[in-house]
């Protein structure tokens, strides 16, 4: 018999959730001290959760306090070794310290755990640029686009990489989509023009040959 006994779910994590939300909201608007206080409260409410330490790490990163951020992300990782945000945080610290290889590996770990993590994806892209290697990142950008088919910024990044790899038709197709979605995106329009020009040049060369 279809009888609904409970209206609200039997949730025993509200207080933790409220504290985390408060921490996140304060952190987003740049009020780092209250954010830190709420994350600390959340940590004492649920000592086994990685979330508050990720929050503390993000706040420390914003304050450019890399040592504190490092400690916080490591605690988050220790509490939950599949916490993608902890990997992303540690990667950012490596990146800021100039260890692009270390950053790249940690961003990759993050993407393996959470292919949806845009921060890690862009970090991966930046680290790739800083190292001058791109091949590994194309896969993750493609994966991300499968999930977020209208993300113009990722379309642009991926088409730039395709172009670098000489995959001009794929690059053009992606850019056409990007421009259709956002005609005001001048970078995409410019790159599209450049690619179309390159394709016609290539065709001309073929004809001449």
């Amino acid at each position, binding site marked *: *018999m*279809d*009888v*609904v*006994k*409970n*209206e*609200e*779910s*039997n*949730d*025993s*994590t*509200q*207080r*933790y*959730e*409220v*504290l985390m*939300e*408060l921490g*996140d*909201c*304060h952190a*987003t*608007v740049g009020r780092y001290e209250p954010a830190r206080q709420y994350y600390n409260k959340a940590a004492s*409410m649920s000592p086994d959760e990685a979330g508050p330490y990720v929050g503390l790490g993000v706040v420390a990163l914003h304050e450019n306090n890399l040592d504190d951020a490092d400690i916080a992300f490591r605690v988050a990782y220790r509490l939950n070794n599949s916490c993608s945000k902890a990997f992303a945080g540690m990667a950012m610290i490596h990146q800021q310290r100039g260890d692009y290889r270390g950053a790249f590996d940690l961003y990759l770990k993050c993407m393996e755990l959470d292919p949806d993590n845009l921060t890690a994806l862009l970090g991966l892209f930046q680290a790739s640029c800083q190292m001058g290697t791109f091949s590994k990142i194309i896969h993750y950008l493609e994966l991300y686009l499968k999930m977020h088919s209208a993300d113009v910024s990722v379309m642009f990044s991926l088409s730039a990489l395709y172009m670098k790899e000489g995959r001009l038709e794929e690059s053009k197709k992606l850019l056409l989509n990007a421009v259709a979605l956002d005609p005001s995106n001048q970078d995409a329009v410019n790159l599209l023009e450049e690619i179309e020009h390159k394709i016609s040049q290539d065709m001309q060369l073929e004809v001449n040959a």
Partner: protein
Amino acid sequence: MTSPLVSIIIPTFNRRLYLPCALGSAVKQDYENIEIFVVNDGGEDVSDIVNSFDDPRIIFINKEENRGKPHSLNLALAKATGKYVCYLDDDDIYYSNHVSTLVGVLESNPDYHVAYSDLYKVYCRILPDGSRQVLSKVVEVSRDFDRYFMFYFNHCLHVSLMHRRDLLEKTGLYNEDLSILVDWDIARRFAFFTDFYHVEDITAEFYSSLEDDDRISIKGRKDLGKYKKNVLAIRKTRPTKPWYKTKDLSIIFDTDEVCGNSINTIGQVVGHTFYPYILYIPMPAHRWAQINSNFANMINVDVAEQVSRLEKIDKALNECEGEYVVILPDGFSITDLWVEKATYALDNSCKNECFELEDSSEYCFAVAARKEDFIKARNQFPEYSLRDSLNAAGLTVKKLNEVASPFEFDSYIHLAIQKEEDGDWKKAIEIYEYLAKSSQNQLWIKTCIVNACFEAGYYNAAIKFSEELNNKRPTVNTLLRHAKICRKMNDYSGAIGLLKKAEQILEGKELIWM
């Protein structure tokens, strides 16, 4: 207007640590004309706690022997003099407006003899010193009164209930043979005589720890056999008539003998019927006497050996006492709601309408009608078959699928939940919007709409309903959801304001609904 006396009853057993809070919340009511019974059910001494309040309104009953909660309640009720009675467990708390809120609605609506409010179920962690760390406050149940639901299961928690004391003269006192579901038993019996007034304000809290719960009611429910036994004992309880709000049901079992399959059918009736009934079995008394019948609410109608099937039914019809009658042929398939759909249809039908049960057929005709209609038809056309006599007497025999049935609200909610699980938020919202057009459970439905709109990404709609909801009755959940919507719309200061309100409720600092 004079303020009627209210009796608050607090049974206690070995909870010295929490009793001061509970008792304190009763003493601090903004309604002064109260008497408070603290009944120690043979547990450790609490006289020092009671005396520390130094309040002449407190009456302390110290039982030597532990005899269970119903006994404690009955002992206090025997001494209570209030016009109204309400109950508080020794580890729960009232908000200061609890008594005044419920007295207010009962005094203003004298047709209602019972009122109930909403409660927070407080999830907590017990710290080493025994104190409670609050983790969540959830409105677990907030359902408008539904008599059929009440017959099926409880939807009014004991702590939230206030009733007229004189109602107990009709229902009887608490059943001391029950070890669990004591509150449902009494609320169910109340439902025979009165509607319940639902106040959607949150006026109390009851506590549930994450650790193994020491509540007798929780322990009892883990023993499934014991639980089922108590449920059946409650469902068979029939207070003394007249019932003002419930029509009695007589089920006439049309069988030649009670053995094998028919015993099975009787067992199915007992297991599947929650509407109050008496099962009448027309058969010769000497044969009935040979049956070791231990079923509750079963009556033999003595008939001669050689009488026809219809004559047996007619005799049972004349002897049975229910306002509603169902003819149950032997071999009829009994499932959940088999008879409740029919009684519900009769409740909502016109005179001269009767209802053929689902799965009824030409050869196995099962029908429900008002007794007076049945008698009229059978008296006028005794030689006709059952169906023909009903038709000939001008009764309309309707199919049950043509009319509303009980628990439709729940069926729709279930359907919407299924749609949500399938990710079809749009369809779920449509169902909730359809339900919102009725007057039932408005806050509940609005909460569902907000959640579905949020998940579907319809943030403008979500925020509109969320504002309505939080203006009417904010809960931790609704505030938290509203804050998440604000975040999605980049309104961080709005989100922070809402979250702080939620935090205050969780910390018990402010009663924002007052």
